[in-house]
């Protein structure tokens, strides 16, 4: 087993047990995909709850994206656990003082909520397909109807009410789930880099921008694949959302860093040495400059100039890709960065990313790609496109049972 343990090289003084960096890239991916879940759900809620009509074309796509990523949220954790078969202990005997203990409940509640909301949102399509199709696929849709074939106006009104309230419940659910991830790190007093009251808010707002950015990319790519025109109003709506939230995210992240430096507690010299050395490119260049300030400036310019058409599509999609990179780097810099600064405050370690193994690069990439492939598959069965999900009011369906 020895060859699986990789000792981290260090400089200065670090505790002997710290030379094995315990939280790997899997723990970087975990908050990243949890954030995408929360962010995508935000987009869905902006339409369902707050009535942002511009976002209607992506409302269902947002819901499905959130669901598909949520399916994979526990996976990096299970891959990381020394005893994944005991993970259920987290639900059976949660230790209530632990920030991590509530994860199972939060995640279970949220996944059920997403499933129910998705079912209501896609019920018209499910019923339509159940009546139209035969064979295995027909049976699949008939099972999915759960015996409810009523598409009358009254029934659809009832569905909408459910969607509305589930979306309302989902807002604290999704954001609580992710804010809590921030608390898992921020509540630890052992590391100056993590120990921050702002951490939950930092995680939350970066999650929102990552989810909206993902939706931009998915929407543009899906339109290109389906060879349909991109709704520029919708794209602008998403761009405004990213633009608004990115400022809050930047402000919070900047404040957090400023707090560490300004308070200048013991060990701050090591943090300064770290951020101006090994973390210069991942933190200042990739996370802040390229990933956050550049898209903010680009989006601001486009809003100011009233850019439209192809230039808007390219500019917004490019900005969204940068935001996705920035948020990934933020997760990396928190999880790995925190462990590269020794608890002694007198030394630095270097994490070496493994390529193979259950916590290696390949698995990490698969963990991010797998929800997208799942989304591709599910979108075939439950098309999230506007025309497919529009409630049918044809007499053939109304009142059918």
């Amino acid at each position: 087993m020895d060859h699986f343990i990789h000792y981290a090289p260090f400089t200065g003084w670090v505790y002997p047990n710290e030379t094995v960096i315990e939280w790997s890239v899997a723990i970087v991916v975990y908050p990243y995909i949890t954030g995408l879940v929360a962010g995508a759900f935000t987009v869905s809620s902006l339409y369902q709850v707050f009535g942002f009509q511009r976002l209607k074309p992506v409302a269902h796509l947002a819901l499905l994206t959130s669901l598909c990523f949520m399916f994979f949220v526990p996976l990096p954790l299970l891959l990381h656990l020394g005893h994944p078969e005991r993970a259920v202990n987290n639900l059976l005997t949660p230790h209530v003082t632990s920030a991590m203990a509530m994860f199972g409940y939060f995640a279970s509640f949220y996944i059920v909520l997403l499933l129910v909301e998705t079912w209501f949102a896609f019920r018209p399509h499910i019923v339509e397909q159940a009546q139209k199709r035969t064979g295995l696929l027909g049976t699949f849709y008939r099972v999915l109807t759960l015996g409810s074939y009523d598409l009358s106006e009254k029934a659809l009104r009832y569905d909408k009410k459910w969607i509305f309230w589930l979306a309302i419940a989902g807002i604290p659910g999704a954001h609580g789930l992710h804010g809590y991830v921030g608390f898992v790190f921020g509540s630890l007093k052992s590391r100056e880099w993590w120990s921050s009251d702002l951490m939950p808010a930092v995680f939350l707002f970066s999650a929102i921008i990552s989810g909206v950015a993902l939706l931009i990319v998915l929407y543009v790519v899906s339109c290109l694949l389906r060879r349909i025109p991109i709704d520029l109003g919708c794209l602008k709506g998403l761009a405004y959302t990213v633009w608004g939230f990115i400022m809050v995210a930047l402000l919070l992240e900047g404040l957090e860093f400023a707090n560490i430096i300004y308070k200048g507690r013991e060990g701050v010299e090591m943090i300064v040495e770290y951020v101006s050395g090994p973390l210069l490119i991942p933190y200042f260049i990739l996370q802040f400059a390229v990933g956050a300030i550049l898209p903010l400036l680009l989006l601001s310019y486009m809003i100011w100039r009233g850019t439209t058409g192809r230039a808007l599509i390219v500019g917004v999609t490019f900005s969204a890709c940068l935001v996705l990179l920035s948020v990934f780097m933020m997760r990396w810099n928190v999880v790995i960065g925190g462990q590269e600064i020794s608890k002694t405050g007198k030394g630095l370690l270097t994490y070496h990313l493994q390529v193979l193994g259950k916590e290696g690069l390949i698995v990490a990439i698969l963990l991010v790609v797998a929800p997208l492939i799942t989304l591709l598959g599910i979108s075939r069965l439950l098309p999230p496109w506007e025309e497919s999900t529009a409630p049918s009011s044809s007499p053939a369906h109304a009142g059918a049972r």
Partner: protein
Amino acid sequence: MPTPDYDWTQHRWAFGVDATKCIGCLRCVEACKRENDVPLTAHHFRTWVERYVYLEGEERPRIDSHHDPVNIAASGSEKEYRFANRYKDAKVEKAFFVPKLCNHCTHPACVQVCPVGATYKTPDGVVLIDHKYCIGCRYCVQACPYGARYFIEEKGVSDKCTWCYHRITKGLQPACVEVCPVGARIFGDLNEKQSPISQFIRNNRVQVLKPETGNAPNVFYVGIDREVN
């Protein structure tokens, strides 16, 4: 495991370290590794010894321990532990050794964060880990401010010093205390006024590591300076 007649409500264990006595022989480290089946590497320790050396003209000490490549090279193996004689030609102003181990805190951060309660504080003041219940999330490893915990890859669980609970509940001393040739490690029951640890705390001006964490450690130090944390 404790003997059947052991009553954990009748004891309040604590540990003392007299750094002025430690000679850095590392018999404690060797004994601990063997007594507790600690992985024989230079990266997993229930107890370790740190060396602080102030050279002439330098404001900050040079600190090293068993994971330092120079010390590994000096011992010739990661399974044996020795301090390299690296300062023989240097002008040393001040130097001392500091034994380290789990602080068995009164308010242990590791216990607070364990999501399943696999790590817990016993009524006699010892922080233990139930290896049969630990899920191997390593949150406790992250939460400990002292770097006292490590993860055993082969067993998939976290591990740390138990003050040799299997020994102290039978009336024996922890292995590291037993083998220390100079009495730098002191162990005993705070409930007994004449126990070695009660006398150590009463007769010395003791301090704990990182008191600002609020963890309230139960390993008391004599003879360390501000650079030790």
